[in-house]
């Protein structure tokens, strides 16, 4: 009898506890005057992707918010005043289910004014339809890829900034290699979204440029030994070695190539080589290694300023010569679009973003919109400061053909330093 009563009481309490927020939601108080603009985001504060928050977009959005607030906030004409930005960051624990729920919580329950993107390409893919459904602008950061491209026309609120495989890194790489007379290339890639995509696109672009792909080998995440792959590339005499993996595997490939004395004319790696700490880790062995990118302090005066501001706040080793200027420019663009629109109405701001050009650290910046301006957009090709970088005398030089180039590519790359 007692037991049954107990069960009943517990279930009633549960129902009440769950129902309470519903009633609370029903009786809203009068709207207080707007004092702050809230930007919400589900970010990986813990879990395997925490490194993104620490090194990629994390430092950039915090720096941007501080700068905007130092100016007094964003000027919104509708309210006739500057409103400071407040961040509301939730931890998604690097879990997809948590991220999608947190994002909807920010939008539906917390009713944040704007959202910032989650980390990694896959999470960005999942966040884009949610943001779009609720009419929230999603200015992308860490991520982008060919899988999303066919969906763009149906995602008018998505704006991607980061460059990736066919947008336009591999085509540019193919130009650099064919200009240098490279004839053969070997590819090692990670069994992962990133690796599969890059190796696929590189295969097409390089072949079109008349370069023979003599080897394509995949490695699993967390691989400990790649000596058989390096040996095979060496035996085949591949003039270019392309490692489309993450930092751990890329660094392993470089270490193994040094140990096995395989010094191809071109050595390019995926994420890893683009970080400032790379030159510190590899010292003279970093010379001549290529990576995705790219920008440096010579790209423009604005880049130089951005660099100075960054190293005043953070460890210079955290600097990313691939994405940091793009993430920052995205936020600068977003900021100007909001002020130009003079309202917090996302539909209005979205139209401004889709049709305007604003000045950012990249120079004049705009988005190429899909579906005749009705779909989502990607940063225009002309806005990028570079697609491929190469370490030369401790500087990550932009080696693209054309105006972005800060130094001509060094091909063949210098020999590995002699062992001490």
């Amino acid at each position: 009898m007692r037991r049954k009563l107990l069960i009943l009481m517990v279930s009633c309490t549960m129902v009440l506890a769950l129902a309470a927020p519903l009633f609370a939601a029903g009786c809203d108080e009068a709207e207080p005057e707007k004092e702050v603009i809230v930007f919400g985001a589900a970010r990986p504060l813990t879990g395997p992707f925490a490194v993104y928050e620490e090194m990629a977009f994390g430092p950039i959005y915090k720096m941007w918010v501080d700068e905007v607030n130092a100016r007094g906030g964003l000027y919104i004409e509708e309210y006739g005043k500057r409103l400071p930005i407040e961040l509301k960051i939730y931890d998604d624990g690097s879990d997809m289910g948590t991220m999608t729920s947190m994002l909807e919580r920010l939008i539906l329950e917390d009713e944040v004014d704007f959202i910032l993107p989650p980390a990694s390409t896959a999470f960005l893919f999942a966040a884009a339809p949610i943001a779009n459904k609720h009419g929230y602008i999603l200015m992308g950061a860490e991520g982008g890829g060919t899988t999303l491209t066919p969906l763009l026309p149906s995602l008018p609120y998505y704006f991607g900034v980061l460059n990736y495989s066919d947008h336009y890194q591999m085509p540019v790489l193919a130009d650099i290699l064919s200009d240098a007379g490279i004839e053969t290339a070997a590819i090692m890639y990670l069994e992962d979204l990133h690796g599969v995509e890059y190796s696929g696109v590189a295969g097409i672009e390089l072949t079109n440029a008349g370069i023979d792909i003599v080897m394509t080998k995949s490695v699993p995440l967390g691989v400990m030994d790649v000596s058989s792959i390096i040996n095979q590339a060496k035996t085949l005499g591949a003039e270019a070695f392309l490692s489309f993996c993450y930092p751990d595997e890329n660094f392993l490939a470089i270490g193994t190539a040094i140990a096995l004395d395989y010094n191809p004319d071109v050595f390019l790696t995926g994420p890893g080589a683009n970080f400032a700490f790379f030159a510190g880790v590899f010292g003279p062995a970093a010379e001549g290694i290529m990576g995705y990118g790219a920008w440096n302090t010579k790209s423009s005066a604005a880049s130089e300023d951005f660099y100075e501001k960054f190293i005043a706040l953070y460890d210079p080793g955290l600097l990313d010569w691939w994405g940091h200027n793009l993430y920052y420019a995205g936020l600068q663009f977003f900021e100007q679009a909001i002020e130009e629109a003079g309202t917090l109405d996302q539909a209005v701001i979205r139209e401004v973003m889709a049709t305007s050009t604003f000045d950012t650290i990249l120079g004049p910046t705009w988005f190429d919109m899909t579906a005749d301006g009705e779909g989502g957009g990607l940063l225009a090709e002309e806005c990028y400061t570079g697609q491929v970088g190469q370490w030369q005398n401790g500087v990550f030089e932009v080696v693209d053909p054309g105006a972005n180039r800060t130094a001509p590519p060094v091909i063949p790359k210098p020999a590995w330093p002699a062992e001490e």
Partner: protein
Amino acid sequence: MNSVASIVLNRSFQLGLLAVILIALATLPLHYQGYNIVRLLNIFMFVVLTVSWVIFSGSTGYMSLASAAFFGVGIYTSALLGDKLPIAVVVGIGALVSSCVAFLVGALTLRLRGIYFAIFTFGLVELIKHLTLWWEINMEDRRGRLVVYVENDIIFWVMLSILVATLLTAYFIRRSKWGLALQSIGENEEAAAHMGINVTLVKVITFAVSALFVGASGAIIATRWTYIDPGIAFNPLYSFMPVLMAIFGGMGRLLGPVIGAIAFTYLKEELGTEFPELYMLIFGIILIVAILYMPNGLVGLIQRLWIRGFRRQDADT
């Protein structure tokens, strides 16, 4: 007081109350579109995972860490068939495929006991994850897949139906001869076999039945995630959470895992949003305290306090 208690304890009153709760939940999306829909459907999902886990592991004492494998199989069913078939059919197929996997795995491995079984089931998650990855890369030339998008209301209703089915199944298994057989396997498997119970058959079928609901909930939740890959679909988190939730709630009664899952999901989200930097720490402390001081879980604790309260009342009179 007594008359109130007798009304409250009246069986038809209880059933009526349950029906009212169910109708209230089922009609919620018709007049409300806020975040609580998402919050509730996450809670439903974890209740399904936890109760399914308890159906098999709670009574037999075989600790299974395979939930994530069945969950992931459901997710992949949705990714593969979501745009070709109606979502209810996809969920049904997800449930069946998961159940078949559980049946095969169970038939092969349920002779393993104790920690060996736990380790094997955990290995199963990794095995299926890497097999899927290998297949996708080498056969399909891709890594992830986009999943068809479904409105939150539909997901809510489907998840609620899965929840009701899970709870009914758990309830009837507990009250049946089958439930007694499971319990006797948990207490002494040899003795159970000597009494004439076909222990292997009972275990394998129960394992397969419990996987039905896990697969179904994976199939429907995948539509909320939009993009999946093997790492996302076969996340070991979904093996551990049900176990922790069941321990937290207490496994003695059906209500235990239900309350455990609700409290845990709610706590996890509130802590994760209120104290994003500290919540893992707070969470860990709560878990340790729960395991040390609440051997019968939340429900056990409430029950103890309740009984103590009654004794004091008796002593007063």
